[in-house]
């Protein structure tokens, strides 16, 4: 088994896992279970990132999403005792199962439309300056780092402000009278 087909097999497995766990995430009644399944999804996606030569992103995915964000979410779920399940009476009465299925189907139409695009995908884009070999030679993290602190310094700085805004926002909301 050469490396390429191995990659494909791993990809297929990771993809299936991602789909399956995300379906589970959506269907679990208990939000804690959902959150846990979601973490699995994130891991699966991180695997795909690795396959796509995006090591830095894969790591960041695990750290930021699976680690930080999901922990935060779980924490909040526990904090406000939302793990009891979600189905309140008001929600039940509101929409019948049929409607919900119809909604889901309509959303799938969107997917079909998007699929349409994916299937007709051709390489029309401009080829960039960072072929895989070059990136691998320099190192993925280093490349991204140099881009972030170089070319994309400005948005990077703004992102810091964004984080500040986020912090202030979260604090204000919680501390407000």
């Amino acid at each position, binding site marked *: 088994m050469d490396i390429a087909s191995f990659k494909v097999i791993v990809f297929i497995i990771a993809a299936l896992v991602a789909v399956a766990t995300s379906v589970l995430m959506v269907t679990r009644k208990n939000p804690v279970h959902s959150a846990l399944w979601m973490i699995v999804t994130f891991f699966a996606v991180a695997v795909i990132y690795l396959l796509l030569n995006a090591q830095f992103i894969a790591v960041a995915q695990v750290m930021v*999403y699976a680690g930080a964000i999901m922990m935060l*979410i779980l924490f909040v779920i526990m904090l406000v005792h*939302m793990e009891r399940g*979600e*189905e309140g009476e008001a929600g039940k009465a509101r929409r019948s199962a049929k409607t919900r299925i119809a909604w889901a189907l309509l959303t799938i139409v969107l*997917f079909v439309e998007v699929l349409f695009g994916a299937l007709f995908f051709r390489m029309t*884009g401009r080829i960039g300056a960072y072929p*895989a070999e070059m990136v691998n030679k320099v190192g993925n993290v280093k490349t991204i780092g140099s881009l972030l602190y170089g070319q994309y310094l400005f948005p990077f700085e703004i*992102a810091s402000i964004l984080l500040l805004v986020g912090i202030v926002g979260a604090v204000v909301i919680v501390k407000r009278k």
Partner: protein
Amino acid sequence: MLQEIPAGFCFVLSGVLFTIGAIGAILRRNVIVVFMCIELMLNAVNLVFIAAAKALSSMDGSVFVFFIMTVAAVEAAVGLAIFVMVFRLQNTVNPYEINLLKG
């Protein structure tokens, strides 16, 4: 045998994840789960960026994904604060019970 993972595969997968996220976002009755579904949709977006970056030999996609992640983190922080606030005031996080504003 395939040399590389075709970008099309990733796009399809991303589409599937996006759709699942969207369906979850409109059907689940817990705002936190809804928010998680939205995060899933963002992941789908990330997947497209990474796959495209790979296919195009470009790093811009990865950089973008980095920013998306940052934003996702910030959103999570603010969003969860908001959920807590709503929960405190209305004692529910069921979106179907939060409708003082309508019409």
